């Protein structure tokens, strides 16, 4: 009997001890968790690099996937064999966990291959400093395609992305501006996509330039002037039509006879392209007139019978 009572008391004491230990462990765990959480909240990604431009677009994956499916399903069913998930993965792999100043064209090669598609001849429309107008035009006239009307450009338009070596590998706070480093994910992407777009062009190509900018309608530093012009294939492209658009009621800084246009023409002629330049190409000007209907340039023929 005394032995039994002794072991019962021992058991009671053990249970009590275990209970106390468990309580202490829970307390310690709670304190550790609390400090980790508050620590995390005050210093989001403490190790991420800081840049001057806006960060990666939030919900990048959903937007890219949605745009890809939208393009191949709702707009271009002939591209039905494209794998949007693979395309998204190849975009992500191009920049995730990498230093955003070290991006190379090779990083984007898989994406370029998966997402590229043929462009019908005579439809390529290049542009420089006319982004708003040119896309309003292609939206209303499906006979022309800008880079942003191809699958690659459509997915990436107005979006930004960049990675960082520390977790989670994507920087949503900031991304490098071009003057911070040239080999950043956005610049490398657009340079490569523009090159491919130019290489794919055939027949007659068009380019919409801005005759109201002070710095000149054609600049060698633009993507058009530095990448696209030099990647047009003379064996595939026969003619280049320049549409030189001036703002309605805006400065008439340059026309087809202007200096930078003459420079462009000589560059293109040297590469054996035939050039036609047109001031204020009427179909596009009519679109500009939507916002300036009363301007003299926007009057229709008033002679009525």
């Amino acid at each position, binding site marked *: 009997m005394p032995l039994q009572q002794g072991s019962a008391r021992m058991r009671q004491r053990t249970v009590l001890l275990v209970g106390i230990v468990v309580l202490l462990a829970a307390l310690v765990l709670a304190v550790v968790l609390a400090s980790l959480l508050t620590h995390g909240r005050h210093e989001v990604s403490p190790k991420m690099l800081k840049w001057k431009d806006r960060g990666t677009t939030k919900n990048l994956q*959903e937007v*890219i996937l*949605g745009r890809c499916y*939208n393009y191949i399903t*709702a707009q271009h069913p002939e591209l039905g064999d494209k794998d949007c998930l693979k395309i998204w993965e190849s975009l992500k792999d191009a920049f995730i966990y990498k230093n955003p100043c070290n991006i190379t064209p090779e990083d984007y090669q898989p994406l370029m291959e998966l997402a590229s598609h043929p462009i019908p001849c005579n439809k390529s429309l290049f542009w420089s400093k006319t982004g708003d107008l040119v896309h*309003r035009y292609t*939206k*209303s006239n499906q006979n022309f395609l800008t880079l942003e009307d191809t699958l690659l450009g459509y997915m990436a338009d*107005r979006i930004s992305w960049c990675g960082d070596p520390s977790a989670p590998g994507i920087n949503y706070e900031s991304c490098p501006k071009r003057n911070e480093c040239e080999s950043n994910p956005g610049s490398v992407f657009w340079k490569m996509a523009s090159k491919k777009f130019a290489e794919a062009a055939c027949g007659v190509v068009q380019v919409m330039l801005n005759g109201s900018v002070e710095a000149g309608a054609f600049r060698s530093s633009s993507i058009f002037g530095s990448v696209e012009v030099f990647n047009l294939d003379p064996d595939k492209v026969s003619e280049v039509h320049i549409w030189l658009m001036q703002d309605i009621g805006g400065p008439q800084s340059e026309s087809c006879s202007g200096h930078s246009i003459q420079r462009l023409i000589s560059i293109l002629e040297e590469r054996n392209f035939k050039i036609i330049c047109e001031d204020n190409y009427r179909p596009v000007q009519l679109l500009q007139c939507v916002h300036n*209907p009363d301007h003299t340039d926007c009057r229709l023929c008033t002679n009525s019978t």
Partner: protein
Amino acid sequence: KWKGEGTTQNLESIVIGRCYDYIRIVNPAVGEKNCSQIWEAFKNAFINKDPCSILPGDYELFINLTFHTIPPNKSLFWENNQLLVNSFADRGRRYMSLADTLFGFIGDFLNWCGQADSPGLDYESCPTTMECENNAVESFWRMASIIYAQHSSGVIHVLLNGSTDGGAYPQPGFFADYEIPNLQKDKISQIVIWVVDDIEGPDIESCGAHSVKTLETRLTALGYDVTCTDNDK
């Protein structure tokens, strides 16, 4: 089985993608929305039901989750001239047509329907409005049109096609049946009608005649200040 096209492939990814595209890029001014929740509300309006029994009210939760105000003087109603409206509205910057609102943006050019006793979408075929009116897509646009009209204010613009055989102001039609009855008279200062003919197209309709006259008369009788212009510049 049905005469219409089936559900658009990858509908869920497209809907969720468009939702985020709108709130992050197209019009971030509408603020934060829960796009997964929005997809669920959209889907639940029509799945697991007889595809001919879907009512506009079934989309109520979807509308509540996607709702945002429409700036005054920016509403643009239309009939039979969708492409013209798109370039004129300029992606919501000049005017905000129904397709420039979040709820319209999500559904534009898509097709969908479900089936009774199954949670799946029907990718084979969907009923046309001729086969049954209370189908998923028709009811969606009816609901969206109602809400769009109810929340329009200031100067209202209506763009009509003066070259179409069906009449510039079609009846029945969305504008006639779902939008006009839901305009809030006390919030609207003026209704401006534009009748635009196709370039080199026939000038079938104009202000003050035929269906446009019917429209002008109806709106005036309702007490609105109405103006009408032909072939807007």
